[in-house]
Structure formats: structure tokens, C-alpha cells
């Protein structure tokens, strides 16, 4: 038995003493404690009161090594607002409001500036990475998605395809897990599926004759590509798309819904209805949950497989502005980060839904995008033209009690 008033630090000391007794070479480790899957964030007795656990019962307290705070690594300066970011093990790709996409090394060195769009770049995505050449995508407000080939050795970039067909700004793109297709969501309420495989043939545009001037422009940028399929069903702009499975697309929209689509047939599988505009959605294959950021302060977790449509599993509330971007951890099933208009990036653990694990308050303006790489790098870009990188050594090993 432990004193009821003890807090995490007291419990941590207790565990350390016990461990030191067992192993002579034990070093002091700070622990975090879980009671029935909820983090202990206050004295034990108040937590038990909050959770309605009787003091008569035997309570199992699980202890895990305390997650270390993310360590700031780099601050990469851009010329304009950063609309999107996606990083791999070696490079960071950012989309910028100065109509370019940029490739950076992890050390914050500018490697490449990809210019070609005539409007703001809204989203970027890696398609394929080789040691020699990489394929990447950039979506823009000029209603096109460009497929680029980046020759790493020569450090040259070439526009292979210009994906035309949207009638509004393309706000979000997502590449499927086979790396041969991608999906784009646009302000024109449509989702379109495109092939991500570079070819030498140009798709015929239906109304090419009507717009000779426009066509001229696109010829410089690469071969025109038309969509494989169009998914329509949203009644407002689509703000975010992702592949939740090999053949399943999830899209979040301003019409207060998240829709799940069958990419093969183009059918609508199910609809999750919220009551606010969705800005961003993220899916974790580890815990099979969707996290959504909307135009209120909450991050909501959804079960995409629930058929009744509108079941919010959990709300994470700590932001004070719109949540513009959410991203699940690729390695940890409980953790996600979120960026908000209140200039703060928050690191969450779903086991402590009342308060985030860490607040990353480095931005001086709106946070527009966040990313989390498998190597444990947290990235966030915003309207202060800065991209912040944090190293987050997530301890994946849970120590049981």
C-alpha cells in the first residue's frame, strides 16, 4: 500500500528504491503511472475520486518510463508560410505559400527548391525514394497536382506530370501504401484518384481546345494527367484525405463529415458525422483510430469501423484555437501531435485526455502543419515561416507493474 496523497514523483522514488534493491547497477529513472489506462496526473486520492474508484479496492498501478520531452533540433526558415510538411528518414519536404515546395536535409540545409506552381502550394507528399531519384507530389491552389522526379545525385528536379481536373484549390493529397496511386481532395468538393506511376504518355484533356493558353503553360510543366476516378459526395470543400487501408480512402470535409470510400469501386462506405468543420484527419494503423482536428478546440478520436456513424470515442481538449493539423505517431499507438491556431503544438497521449504530455510552444504564429516520422522526429510549420524540428525519443517499451 502507498499513501493516498502520493504523487507521481513519490511513486517514482518508491519504484526506484525497489528496483535498486533488486539490481545493484540501477540508475534513477523517472516513471509515469497508469491506473486503468489513465495517466496519473494528480495526487492519487484525487485521481481516484475523479475516476470513482473506491479506496477500499485494490488498485493496480502500471508504471512506464516517463516520456522524455521532445528536444528541439532545428529551426528552418522559409520565405513564406509553410502550408505542409512531410519528412522521410533523410529529407524534409515542405510546401510553402511562396508557390514552391522545398526539400531540406534533416540538418536544416536547403537542398532543393521546386518552383512550378502558379499559386500557393497546399500539400506535399513523397511517393517513392531511391538512392538515385525520388518521386514527389505537390498540390497547389492553382488546381493542379504536380508529380516531380528529383534526381538526388545531380540534384535536379523535373516535373513529370501535371494532374489536372480539379476545379478548385487542391488542399490535400495522400499516397497509398503501394506507392502507385494517390488521392487528392479539393475545395471543389471532389476526391480524385490518380496514378502515381510516371509514364511517357499524355492523357487527353477533354477541353484542351477551349483553353490553348493554359495548355501551353502546362506543357512546360510536364505531361497532363487525368484522374483515374472521381469520388463525389461531399457537399463542402474536402480538407484532408488519407488512405486508411490499401483500398480505403478517408476524407474529412467542411460539411462536418468524415467519409470512408472504397478506392476500388469508388463507393461510399460509411460516414462519420461531426458538428464542426474538419480541418485535418489522421489514421493510426496501430490503434485503428481516426483523429480529427476541427474548427473548435477539440481533437476527436473516432472508430472508422463503427457503423452507427457519429461515435466520438474521446475528445482531447486543451487547445484554445482551431486544430489545423493532427498526426498520429507512426510507432506508438497512444501518441499523437496536433497543431493549432493558438500557435502551440501539443503532444498527446490518449491515456491522458485531459492534458497533453507536452506543449511545444515555439511558434509565433498559427501552426498549419505537423508531421511525425518513424525516426521519431516531430515537425511543425506555421504562419511564422518557421519549421521546427524536435527529436522525440519515444520509449516504446512499456514496463509492467
Amino acid at each position, binding site marked *: 500500500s502507498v499513501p493516498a496523497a502520493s504523487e507521481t514523483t513519490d511513486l517514482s522514488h518508491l519504484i526506484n528504491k525497489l528496483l535498486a534493491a533488486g539490481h545493484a547497477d540501477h540508475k534513477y529513472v523517472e516513471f509515469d503511472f497508469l491506473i486503468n489506462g489513465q495517466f496519473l496526473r494528480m495526487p492519487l486520492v484525487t485521481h481516484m475520486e475523479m475516476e470513482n474508484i473506491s479506496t477500499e479496492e485494490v488498485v493496480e498501478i502500471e508504471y512506464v518510463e516517463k516520456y522524455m520531452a521532445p528536444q528541439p533540433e532545428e529551426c528552418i526558415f522559409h520565405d513564406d508560410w509553410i502550408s505542409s510538411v512531410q519528412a522521410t528518414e533523410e529529407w524534409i519536404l515542405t510546401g510553402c*505559400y511562396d508557390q514552391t515546395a522545398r526539400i531540406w536535409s534533416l540538418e536544416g540545409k536547403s537542398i532543393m527548391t521546386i518552383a512550378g506552381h502558379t499559386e*500557393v502550394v497546399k500539400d506535399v507528399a513523397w511517393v517513392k525514394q531511391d538512392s538515385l531519384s525520388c518521386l514527389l507530389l505537390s498540390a497547389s491552389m492553382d488546381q493542379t497536382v504536380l508529380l516531380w522526379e528529383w534526381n538526388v545525385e545531380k540534384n535536379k528536379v523535373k516535373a513529370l506530370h501535371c494532374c489536372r481536373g480539379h476545379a*478548385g*484549390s487542391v488542399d490535400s493529397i495522400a499516397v497509398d501504401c503501394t506507392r502507385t496511386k494517390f488521392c487528392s481532395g479539393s475545395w471543389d468538393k471532389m476526391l480524385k484518384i490518380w496514378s502515381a506511376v510516371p509514364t511517357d504518355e499524355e492523357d487527353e484533356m477533354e477541353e484542351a481546345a477551349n*483553353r490553348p493558353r493554359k495548355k501551353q503553360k502546362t506543357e512546360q510543366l510536364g505531361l497532363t494527367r487525368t484522374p483515374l476516378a472521381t469520388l463525389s459526395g461531399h457537399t*463542402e*470543400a474536402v480538407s484532408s484525405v488519407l488512405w486508411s487501408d490499401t483500398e480505403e480512402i478517408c476524407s474529412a470535409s467542411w460539411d462536418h463529415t468524415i467519409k470512408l470510400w472504397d478506392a476500388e469501386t469508388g463507393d461510399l462506405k460509411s460516414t462519420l458525422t461531426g*458538428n464542426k468543420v474538419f480541418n485535418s484527419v489522421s489514421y493510426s494503423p496501430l490503434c485503428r483510430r481516426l483523429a480529427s482536428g476541427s474548427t473548435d478546440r477539440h481533437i476527436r478520436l473516432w472508430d472508422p469501423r463503427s457503423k452507427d456513424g457519429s461515435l466520438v470515442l474521446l475528445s482531447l481538449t486543451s487547445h484554445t484555437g482551431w486544430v489545423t493539423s493532427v498526426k498520429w505517431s507512426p510507432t506508438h499507438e497512444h501518441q499523437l501531435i496536433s497543431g493549432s491556431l493558438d500557435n502551440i503544438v501539443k503532444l498527446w497521449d490518449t491515456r491522458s485526455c485531459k492534458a497533453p504530455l507536452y506543449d511545444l510552444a515555439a511558434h509565433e504564429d*498559427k501552426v498549419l502543419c505537423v508531421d511525425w516520422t518513424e525516426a521519431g522526429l516531430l515537425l511543425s510549420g506555421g504562419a511564422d515561416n518557421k519549421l521546427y524540428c524536435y527529436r522525440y525519443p519515444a520509449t516504446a517499451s512499456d514496463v509492467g507493474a
Partner: protein
Amino acid sequence: SFFTTSPRHPGVHLLETVSPALTPLPSAPLQDIRNTVGNIPMEWYQDFPHIGYNLEGKKIYKPIRNKDELDMFLEKMENPDYWRTVQDKMTGADIKLTDEQVDLVHRLQKGQFGDVHFNPYEPAVDFFTHEVMIHPVTNRPADKRSFIPSLIEKEKVSKLVHAIKMGWIKPRKPKDDTPTYYDLWAHEDPNSILGRHKMHVPAPKMKLPGHEESYNPPPEYLLSEEEKLAWEQQEPAERKLNFVPQQYRCLRAVPAYSRFIHERFERCLDLYLCPRQRKMRVNVDPEDLIPKLPKPRDLQPFPTTQALVYRGHTSLVRCLSISPSGQWLVSGSDDCTVRFWEVCTARCMKTLPVGGVVKSVAWNPNPTICLVAICVDQSVLLVNPCLGDKLLYGATDQLLESYVAPEEERVQPVQWVTATMEEHSKGVRLVVQHSKAVKQVTWHGKGDYFASVVSDNSNMQVLIHQTSKRWSQNPFRKSKGLVQCVLFHPIRPYFFVATQRYVRVYNLLKQELTKKLMTNCKWVSSMAIHPGGDNIICGSYDSKLAWFDLDLSTRPYQLLRHHKKALRSVAFHKHYPLFASGSDDGTVIVCHGMVYNDLLQNPLLVPVKVLKGHAMTLDLGVLDVLFHPTQPWVFSSGADGTIRLYT
């Protein structure tokens, strides 16, 4: 018990004795003419010649009556026995009564017994005495049955017992001794006479005279000189006493009271004016008089918190407009620029310097046209912002370029000028040059026509322009006052013109005034129409917001006084039942304004949220409010140079 015997009545005996003496006449033994018809009414034989039958069965003929009236009279006069002659009805013969018979008749007439020898007063003999004797009349012993219980009674009792046991006979209820009272006044009408008695208010009583009134009051009641002086200086109504106590030697020395008539009159006046009925005061809780409004929580969604601030303007932002899709926002400012913003990120996408204070901007409501009208100084600029769908804004440019000038030049109140190359590169396509400064521009719902308001006192204040034909016209011949703002009806061909105090509704097809709305405000500042088209709201500089139901009345359905300072702008949401007002006090008030399809149900107006955020600059707060076309979001532009989005 005793019996008395009365003497036998002798009448029967009399008849028995007399009637045989009557019937047999002296000639009877010779000729027995007894009639055998029996006891029948003799009238039956009236019409026959005979009168019956004798013992031998022969008819008895009626005696021949040949005497006339004169004979009858003569006989009556001459016959001394006429008075004792009677007719026998059975035989029709005349019979002369004997003296004995006459005597008998006389006695019977006198009420005497017929028998002369009968003594009605014979002494009575008592067979049984009325006194109770000590010895019985008979010496018979008592019956045995009087000593043994009666079997009949036993049977009766057993029947009763059985009936009681079977419950056929209920035992008697115990008698309730409590007396019953009746409330005579329970259902009494309070207006009845008795009710009025209850409400009786007695007449005010006069104060009884005290020591002061005495002719010889104790000295402490007499006024001293100073008190008397003070009494005289007081107003008559303020005086504690309406007389000065005075001392007289004796009662006889008291003079006549000079104010007597006066005081009697006042007393009568008191009685006359005294209320004789208690006023029925209605006991109403003031809380009950407030209409029951639903809670704002139940009326969601509506904007509650500030989400984004659009920074960039360096001076007050006068006007706002939003693209029909809700992706772009345009704002006009006193820093002589028009800025285009991306709504969801507050990114300024374009800045258009226009070289003058921007008074009004209006995005074309037609979703297939990408055009913004901007009021700068004396001109209206039609700007293609080149935002959104490329096809769309390309088509808009083509539409504007496809204009072919008509052959004959028409006289127009304004000049349509195509933009120069330099202006064209900035997005300006057409310039509509007015003669005076333009202060407002608004589009018709179809997006071809727009109206502009010119600061002028003449009839040239309102102009309607057609973009596709580059044609302007002046719809009004006369000026009806200083026009503040104009508005097109969203569905029907109506046109709203707000002057300082009235809103006039014109039918554009019939070209006539349809309605004139009295705003009850001193100076209308702004106006907005419900998307249904039947309700409009007017904001005024005297901090009132008037809601008009056009079907209901020309007076405001409700006047809302929520703001502390002048209202600058009002707006309706396109889909949600929301309207908002921006004021000089720096706040935006969002109200729920539900309009029902049911004509009988009045609109429901509930203020739901006060949105603050704008800093006060130059005593100005919010200058324009605007709703997002699809989301329950409201924009406000302020004198502090910012635009704020509340969600």
C-alpha cells in the same frame, strides 16, 4: 270499554206502515189498477197512450186529459181540495189526500217522526259500565298460550336471524351525531352585493377634537408668539393645525367659527372623493411577463469564439464581402487598398491599391461569375480577383470582353470605362464613373445587375447598372430623402431603398412603390434581408435594430436595443437562422432569428452571443459584419484595421 246504544230510527217503520195506506185507494177493491211495470222511470211511457200494465196484463190507459190551461185555472180557483190533490204517476190518476196523510206530510216537513206515538227521549239503559271493575266480567282462566313462547314469533325471529346472518338485512348505521353545516358563501360571486360588502371601505373619519380645539385649552397647547409667526409663514397645506388654539373666558364668549362653511365643504369633498372600492391590483410576477425564450445552448450552432484575425490593413476596414463559395474574403479599407483573403488561414492572397478610400465592396453572388464591385471615390470598379477556379474567372473575363457596344450612343447617367492595361493587370476590368462620390454598391442575386448609391441630394442618388450591357439607369424621378443604402430582394423583383427614417419597397417590374416601412429610428445605417425575402432588419445610428416582417406590418415587428452605441452594419446568414449586428461599441451581437414557414407563427428572435475582440479606435468599433455563406461563422471588420472571424 263500553257501548252505547242509540234508539232505532223510526223512518223504516214509517214507510212500511204508510205506503200500503197510500196506494190502495178507496175504490181499489173494486178495480185494482196496480201497475206492473216495476220501478222504471215513467218517462219511458211518455209517448204511449198507456202507462203500463195491470195484473191481468191489460194496458192501463192514461186518463183522458182534456183540460186546458183555463180549466186548470178554474179548477184551482174553484176546487177547495185542489191543494190536497196529487197525481199518481204510476196510474196517472188524481188522488185526493186524506187528513191523516196531510198530517203525516206536515210532520215530515217539520222534521218530526212520522209515528205520532214514538218518543225519541226515552231513558237509556247502561248494559256495560265505563268504570273498570275489580272482578272480571267472566271468570274464565287465562289461556295456556299466553304463558308459553309463541311458535310463530319464534319462526319470525329465526327468519330475521337468518336474514341478518346472510347479510340480507343490514344493521342500522350508527347515527352520526356531528351536525352538518353548509357554507352559504362558498360559491359567492364577489361582484354580488355580499361581495361588495366585503370590499366595503368605510368613509374616512374626522379626527376627534383634542385639547387644542377647546375654548379654554391648557396653556401648553396655546401657541407662543414665535410659533404663531411660524404658523403664519407656513403654507396652509403644511400646517400641523389648521387653526390657532385660542383661550376664551367662558363658552359664551366663543365667537362664531369663521371657517365653518369652508371646513364642512372640505369634509364633503373628502367623502365624495374618497375611493369607496378597493382597487383590484393584479398580482403578477414581473418574471412571468418576460416571454419564454429558449436557451441559447439549444439554438446552436452559432459563432461563439474568435478563431482568426486577418491582419494587414493599416487603417479602418470599412467593408467586407465574401465569395459565394466561402473560400475568399474581400475587404476594403481607408488605407486605399482592397485585400483578398483566404478564409480558412487568414492569409492575404492579394492586395489591390485603388487610390482612394474604399466605401463598399460587393462580391458577385452568382457562383459562376468571379467579379467584385468596389466603390472608390466617384467610381465603381469591377474587379476580377482571379481567385478560385481558373475556368470560372476566365469565363468571367470572356463574358466582360464579349460586350459589343450598341450602334447608337445612349445618354447614361454614368460613364463605363474599360480599364487600362496597367489596371487590367491588377485585375480591374471596368470602371463605372459617377458624377459624385459613391457610397454603396450591391449586387442583384443573379449577378448581372448592381445598384450604387451616390452621395447626392438630387434624384440621382440611386442608380441601377447592368454589367453585361454596360447600361445604367436612374430608377427614380424624385428624391425622397437622403438614401442610406439599397438592397435587392433575393427572389422577387423588389428593390429596397432606405432613407434616414423610412425603408421604401419598390416593385421593379410594375415600377411603383409597394410599401413604406416606418423604422421608428432616427437614422438608418444599414439593412439586410432574410434569404426567404419576407423579413428585413435595419440597423440605425441610434443603436436600435428593427426587424420587419413584410407580411405583417409596415412597422417593426421587434425593436432590439442590445447595443450601447450606433449600429454600423447588420447581416443575415444564408442558411442558418442567424443574424448579426456590429456596432460602434466594438461588439458584434449574434441573434437567433428563426422564421417559420407557418404564416401564423411569428419569428423567434433570441440574442445568443455578444462577440468582443475589436479594439476601439477613434470611437469606432465594428464597421461591418458578414456571415460565411455555408458555415455558422461571422466576420467583423473594425476600426482597428483587423478583420476577425468568429466560429
